[in-house]
């Protein structure tokens, strides 16, 4: 015996009450579109995170080819001084609100290049503001996913309309370019 087809769509004439900030936060946290680029071996893990086994798209995360369409920048690997200028420019081209995940030891603090890496920026937070640091060398896809979940928690706690908390703005006192 086959069930009768539904006669009404259940959500018709539905009403939902919520704060507009919660709506904004929900939409921001649910569609974190990263800028497509990778820097080193961490990028391999990032690509794997986006592929079918780990499938970042189930969190609403899928890469965009233009900084104009991107919400988040994953610094996936070693930031060389040569690349630093490019990264900073790409970051500046992204529309706000914009977020940064620093992925792996190199991007967090210079990693294995801390002492003798004449060509490596000792942490990408010297050039752009970082929201979440993911440890590892390189971090497994699970760790990167955890970084995204942490970022979503952070976004849900933001007050985009009432003005509290602007975590992506760099503190002028910490900005080496202004000194």
């Amino acid at each position: 015996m086959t069930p009768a087809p539904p006669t009404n769509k259940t959500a018709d004439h539905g009403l939902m009450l919520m704060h507009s900030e919660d709506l904004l936060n929900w939409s921001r946290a649910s569609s974190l579109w990263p800028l497509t680029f990778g820097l080193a071996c961490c990028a391999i893990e990032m690509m794997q995170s986006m592929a079918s086994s780990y499938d970042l798209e189930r969190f609403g995360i899928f890469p965009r080819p233009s900084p104009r369409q991107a919400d988040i920048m994953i610094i996936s690997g070693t930031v060389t001084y040569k690349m630093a200028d490019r990264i900073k420019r790409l970051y500046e081209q992204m529309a706000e609100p914009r977020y940064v995940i620093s992925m792996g030891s190199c991007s967090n603090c210079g990693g294995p290049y801390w002492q003798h890496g004449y060509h490596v920026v000792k942490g990408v937070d010297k050039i752009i503001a970082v929201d979440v640091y993911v440890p590892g060398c390189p971090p497994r896809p699970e760790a990167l996913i955890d970084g995204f979940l942490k970022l979503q928690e952070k976004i849900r706690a933001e007050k985009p309309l009432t003005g509290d908390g602007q975590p992506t703005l760099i503190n002028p006192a910490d900005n080496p370019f202004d000194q």
Partner: protein
Amino acid sequence: MTFSDITALLQDQFSFAVNTTNTQPYLLVQPADLVPICQFLRDDERLFFDQLACLTAIDNGPESDTMDVFYNFTSIPYEHDLMLRVMIPRQTTSGDLPVLPTLSHLWRTADWHEREAFDLVGIRFENHPDMRRILLPTDWEGHPLRTDYVEPTYYHGILNK
């Protein structure tokens, strides 16, 4: 062809020192003889070194005041290989970079290898078609794989530590 066969073939025409105590034997060549020997290595039908497999530049430091460049050649059809070593003074009287003749007209591989040696160790290759940095930014100062290289404190306003 073995190393001694190759050495015997070269001995009639060129002067060089032979080192067989090293794990991989090599020929120590004077900078002025480098291009003629390499031309012969490439063009002679018995040798047929059609590939420059590697070029390595080494800074021996201010105490010894020398630099080494090692060339590794391979003949793909004959499956034999040869290593050449060239030693040059580290400091020139004019204060310019030490100079070696380029091999880029013999093997295209040498083009980028020599640019890398110039970029990181600071050896200028004469008659190279495009002698500029290959890895580091164009405004970089110094040659980082030199033993007396001092890391910059700032690069474009970014603190290095």
